[in-house]
């Protein structure tokens, strides 16, 4: 267990400004404050070497939680233990254990070339030159840094900057890497590069990774386990596959044909959802009938030219979860 979170809560308070005439003048004299509970009593644990997805809609409290895990914020109540330390109290020791990338904000030296930022980090974390050189070499290759490593950070594109940030966070080989929306706003190629890199440092180097993202492709490709929160509370914690199984109560099969009218198709195991001359979609409950049985039934009775079984879509599952907003009992937690 490398990360343990118990009953973690964070409140923010700010002056309460009521709209209306002379609102500004009045606010000079009021002391009213408004409290927002950004994280509301969450608990979870993360194993060494895991790659966990931390999901939730905007404003759910993901970034706030990550900031408490990294020691940037001090919890209002509850405890966080990371590699045996309380992050905000053992700040310096914690700093060498973790790396963090926040998609919205760079950690690099804005006015200096990317290479200078890496050198400063090398010195700050007292890396020996040989290790630095080999590691930077490997990362440069993985992320194609060559073309922009000597450009000042302020002139980098978002995708380039993000790659730079990732390298800066991993240079000193921390045991844990926090990624808060690292792929937001990036194009497909840049996203792919970043995914590859994250997969490599997790699988290849055993780094524990906590990833927040709105991109379900990121989750499907990288995470086995997810924690989903909303309004500061945990909605689901557990295996991605289990989540789908639990939420996907029906699956669709699409058949194509050329030799007969698809509108005539019917099956004892599945219901026709839509049909035209060349194509029909049928829906079945996988709990009642296994997919191979449906497929066999259809292919044995009709001269079908093509058939596809649609994968349950994580995006849909998540959407459903966010709208219902009821916690799901964890089944088959990876831990």
């Amino acid at each position: 267990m490398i990360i343990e979170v118990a009953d973690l809560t964070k409140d923010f308070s700010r002056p309460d400004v009521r709209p209306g005439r002379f609102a500004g003048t009045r606010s000079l004299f009021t002391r009213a404050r408004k409290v927002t509970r950004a994280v509301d009593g969450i608990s979870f644990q993360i194993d060494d070497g895991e790659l966990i997805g931390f999901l939730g809609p905007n404003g759910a409290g993901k970034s706030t939680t990550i900031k408490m895990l990294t020691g940037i914020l001090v919890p209002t109540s509850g405890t966080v233990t990371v590699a045996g330390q309380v992050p905000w109290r053992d700040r310096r020791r914690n700093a060498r254990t973790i790396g963090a990338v926040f998609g919205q904000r760079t950690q690099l030296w804005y006015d200096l070339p990317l290479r200078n930022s890496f050198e400063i980090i090398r010195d700050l974390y007292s890396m020996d030159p040989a290790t630095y050189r080999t590691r930077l070499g490997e990362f440069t290759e993985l992320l194609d840094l060559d073309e922009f490593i000597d450009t000042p950070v302020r002139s980098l594109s978002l995708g380039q900057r993000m790659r730079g940030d990732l390298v800066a966070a991993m240079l000193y080989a921390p045991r844990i890497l926090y990624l808060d929306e690292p792929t937001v706003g990036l194009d497909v190629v840049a996203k792919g590069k970043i995914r590859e890199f994250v997969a490599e440092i997790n699988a290849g180097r055993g780094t524990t990774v906590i990833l927040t993202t709105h991109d379900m492709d990121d989750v499907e490709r990288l995470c086995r386990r997810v924690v989903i929160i909303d309004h500061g509370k945990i909605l689901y914690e557990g295996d991605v596959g289990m989540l789908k199984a639990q939420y996907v109560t029906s699956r669709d099969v699409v058949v194509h044909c050329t030799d007969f009218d698809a509108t005539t198709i019917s099956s004892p195991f599945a219901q026709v959802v839509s049909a035209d001359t060349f194509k029909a979609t049928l829906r079945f409950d996988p709990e009642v009938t296994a997919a191979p049985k449906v497929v066999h039934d259809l292919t044995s009775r009709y001269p079908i030219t093509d058939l596809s079984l649609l994968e349950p879509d994580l995006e849909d599952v998540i959407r459903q979860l966010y709208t219902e907003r009821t916690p799901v009992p964890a089944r088959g937690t990876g831990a």
Partner: protein
Amino acid sequence: MAEQVKTLSPIREDLRASRILLRAGWRAAMSYRISFLSAILGGMVLQGTQLLFIGVLLAKFNVIDGWRLNDIAFLFGMRLAAHAFYVVPFGALLSIDQAIQQGDVDRYLLRPAGTYLQVITRYAPLMALGDALLGFGAVAVFAPQASVDWTPGKVVFLIAALVGGGLVETGMQTFLAGLSFRMTSTMSLRILADDTITRFSGYPLTMFSRWGFLSLTFIFPMAFIAYLPATVLLGRTDDLPIPAWLAYLSPAGGPVVFAIGLVFFNRMIRSYTSPGS
């Protein structure tokens, strides 16, 4: 690979880190070469207007509260030089509000170096070079003309007083900067402190009446910056409504005020609410 370093004491680690970060700050400052001259000139003008002010007035009035031009000029010079000991190393403290509002502090909290250290090395305060040029120049010019019989002991006392005075100002500014973790902006508060020090710490402070003087010594400890040590050098400790030994110890006020400011600042970091992202 970082195993050996963990045994370093935090202070040595910070010294090492400050060297690294300062170099980065200067490198960044140099990437905007045009601003160099105007910044240094700005620093000189900022403090220079005060020198001009006092010069013009004394040309007309000759004495302030029994102090003649040469001694007032020396007192102003001391205050300017002490100020340089604040702005040259700690000048970037001025941008604490931005550091907090833009979330730069996030980054500082994630790195293996002191947060305060990273705040004061945010950028190289070029303007401070102007302050230093003017301040040390003023002391060099006015000290020989002051009514002081210079001995090596007095020179050492002067240097200690200047460094101490700089630390008093730093301590006060550090304390106020700590409030930024709680309040949206403390810029106006810090400018107020800076401006009050700039404009009034170069006068014989006993002229502000007994209570005025005592508040400027014990509540807003501006008297430690230049006036108290100056009374020692000029042999005017009899003017003071406080025991003379306190004036003799005044250079030690710097480390004390600075320590208080720093402890407060570090305590206030816990209240940091990183801006939402």
